Structure formats: C-alpha cells, structure tokens
C-alpha cells in the first residue's frame, strides 16, 4: 500500500508543479513505483514540465467519468520505467471532479504504487479541496516572500483543519547571497513564522527554467543545484537523514575556477 502525498502552497508560481515533477522523478530514480496526478484541471502544466504533453489521450476527468479505465489514462515516463503521470483535463474546470471521486481514485492508485504525488492547484477553493481529499500527507512549498509565506500559513491552517498529518515545508528559490545581505527572509525566519518541520531547501537555479522548457526535470541534470536539492528531498521522503545542501558553496572559489577552466 503506497502513500498519497499532496504538494500544495496556496500561492501560485512558487514551484508546486516543478517540485512534483522533480520529487516524482527522484523517488522513481530511487527505485520506487511512482504516479503523479495533476489536479490542476483546466490549467494543466505537469505534463509539459515532464515533456509528456503529446502523449495524452485520456485524462483525470475521463477516468472519474468512466470514459476509460485508470490504466489507460496513465502515461509512462519517457526516461524512467516506474514513473507514471495521470494528466489533468484542459477543457473543463475544477468542478469536473468531486472529493469522493478523488478519494476513490487515490485509493485505487495506492494499491499499485509506492507513492502517489498530487500536484495541487493554487488557491483554496474546490481544486484545493479535491486535491487534498485523498491525501494522507502534505508538503507545503513556499518561496522566501512575505506573500508566499502568508499563503503557506493559511494552507497549513486548512490542512490542520482537514485533520491531515502535520505538513512538512519545502522552501524554494532561496538566494543565499540575498539572505546574507539581509534582503531576503532566511530559513529560520520562515520556520519561525510557519512553525512546521522543514523537509528541504531548494536554491534558486537558472537551470530550472531551462529544464522546465525542455520538459526534462532538473533532478536528471547533474549540474543543477536545485536538482541536487530535490534529490536530497526525495531521499528524506524515504526516511534517510540527509543534511541540508551547502547553499554557500554556490559561487565559491572552486566553482569559479572550475567554470574558468570549463569544468563547471
């Protein structure tokens, strides 16, 4: 029996979809059977980030409305054997599925998979309620911005009200140089405000943009520091103790020298 984990944030654009794609890929790299479910009906993105857009025939709404069997809608990843995607519908909206349908779907999926990762839409309305309906655990993604942290706080409150396990935090797009100058909230500030456990910190990384556009999760790119961070988070999800990434090493002397000699 697998676990169902929802990846949520409240605010849009903080990296829910990127996180889902990378953690899904990371867990699959670590040998787990993983399915990612895109619940952002009407605004699907996860398929694009994974580079699986052109393989979609059936989607989540087709499954819950019985137009196809669940197995038919699951898209196998290009690169990894044990990674699957259940894409969202692009023509309907969030009202196309109900909470009960999501619960049934998650129950069905966790029979077959070790991990069911649910990519939650932004907002706190029906899409959010559907996305968390079938989940047992939650990961809250935030960026070091006041607005994102405030929304994360709201989301954590809603998750607590829904009687889920205490969610864990992923801090995305942190810039150590700005934190050092005091221009950006640091990790302690955010943990102070949100008062939940930290699962990982992902540094800002240009390679994320590149990888997202190419449809290849950054975790597969050895040079990507964000990818490395996501790999560590995947390992932590499996219960390993992995220390936080050395964010300061980002532009250290060695890295600069390596770059200079074309090795970076």
């Amino acid at each position, binding site marked *: 029996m697998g676990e169902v984990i929802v990846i949520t944030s409240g605010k849009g654009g903080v990296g829910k979809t990127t996180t889902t794609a990378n953690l899904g890929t990371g867990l699959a790299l670590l040998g787990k059977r993983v399915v990612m479910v895109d619940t952002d009906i009407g605004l699907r993105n996860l398929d694009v980030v994974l580079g699986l857009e052109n393989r979609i025939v059936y989607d989540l709404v087709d499954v819950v409305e019985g137009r196809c069997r669940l197995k038919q809608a699951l898209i196998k990843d290009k690169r990894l054997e044990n990674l699957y995607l259940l894409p969202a519908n692009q023509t309907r909206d969030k009202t196309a599925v109900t909470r009960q349908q999501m619960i049934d779907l998650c129950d069905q999926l966790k029979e077959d998979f070790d991990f069911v990762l649910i990519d939650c839409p932004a907002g706190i309305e029906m899409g959010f309620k559907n996305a968390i309906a079938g989940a047992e655990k939650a990961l809250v993604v935030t960026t070091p911005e006041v607005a994102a942290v405030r929304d994360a*706080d709201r989301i954590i409150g809603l998750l607590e009200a829904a009687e889920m396990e205490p969610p864990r935090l992923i801090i995305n797009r942190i810039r150590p140089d700005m934190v*050092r100058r005091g221009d950006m909230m640091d990790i302690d500030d955010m943990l102070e405000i949100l008062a939940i456990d*930290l699962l990982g910190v992902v540094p800002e990384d240009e390679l994320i943009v590149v990888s997202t556009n190419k449809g290849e999760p950054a975790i597969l790119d050895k040079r990507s520091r964000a990818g490395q961070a996501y790999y560590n988070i995947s390992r932590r999800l499996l219960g390993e103790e992995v220390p*936080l990434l050395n964010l300061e090493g980002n532009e250290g002397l060695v890295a600069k020298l390596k770059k200079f000699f074309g090795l970076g």
Partner: protein
Amino acid sequence: MAQEVVTIKGTRQGLVIQFKGESDLEEIKEALKAKLEEARGFFRGARFILSPSRPLTTGEASELEELCRHYGLLPARETATPSVRPASKLPTILKELTLRSGQELTVEGDLVLLGNVHRGAIVRASGSIFILGRLKGTAHAGYRGNTSAIILALEMQPSQLRIASTVAVPPGPEEVRPYPEIARLSSGRIVVEPYRKGVLPQNIKRPSPVWARERKRPYLTPRPHPQYVP
C-alpha cells in the same frame, strides 16, 4: 446533578434572576415559568433584574421581562444594583492552539491563549485577552463594548489592536520587544506599555530571545536544522 437553569436570589436591591450555562431561550423560559409558578405569587411586587451568563439579545431580554411582569414582578433599574456586574460574570476560557492566517477565534469571556496568533488571524473576546505567545495578527478585546478589557501578549507585534470600538495600528516598523506588553484604553486611545513597569530597568541591556540571536547567525556552514525530521 445538573445545574439549575434558573436561580433566583434575593438581594437588598431586589431579586436577581440568574441563568446558568448555555441554555437556549425556550429552556430558560420554561425553567423561569416553573420557578415563578412554584412561588405562587410570593414574588409579586418585587423588583427584579436579569443576570444572564451569556449575552441576551434585546428581543430575548424583553421576552423574559414580559414573563416576569406576567407574574407580578417589576423590573428594577440595572444601575440600582452595583453588586451585580456583568463583566465579572464572564468565564475565563483557556485555549491551546496556534491561529494561522485566515483563522478566527471568538470567545465570550476572558481568553487565555497558549499559542501564537499569526499574521492574518483574528482573536476576539468579549472580555480581556491574554496571549501567552506571540501576537502578530489582530486582537479585539471587549468586542461587545467592554472598554475596560485589556490585551496582553508575551510578544506584542500586532497588525492591529482593537478594544471595544477603538482601533489602533502599531506605529513605525515592526520591532521585537522581548518582554510582555499590555494594551489598554486610556482616554479614548489604545496605549501599549510593558507589563508592569520597572520589571526591566532601562539601564540594563535586554536579553534578546534565543530565536532572535539565531537568525543573526550567517549561514556559513550547512547544518541540519533541529526541526528537520528525516
């Protein structure tokens, strides 16, 4: 045995009719009727005042008064009974929780909150509010009009303070003052001052709380966060 819904006490100023618990109007009326019926006109001509344990709407109050009048009781001026102060009847409610953005807590009575009030959260009490934690959201004491209500927090960084119908916004930028503070109404304005002046003399450097020290430490070496759970 369950508490009686209605008790009638004789005082020098007249009869004090108390209602216990969170009973609804019908229940109170029923119990009151039974009491007066039982007294068989003993109370006829006596002055009375109502002393509810929860606030009554004007409609409810007048219905109950009407019932008393029917049995020959006469309403007393409430000002004539200084021994009965509704404020002192308010219960103290203890809550242990964290209020996150978007969450609200409203209580009838004085509130003792063990936990923090985050930005975007609201805590309301008809009496005073004592926050044994950090107040970053909005607190509204005496929200039914009690101007003697106060707000106390171990760390006072509110987005807004309200007492009765007065609203105050903290001046200037957010700062951490690591000592308890108390907000009260003073000649129509909300004033905030350290709880008990003189507890922390001005010439002694105030110790900064642990978390404030921690945040100043630069991130030079990676370290697993103590809160990290594998």
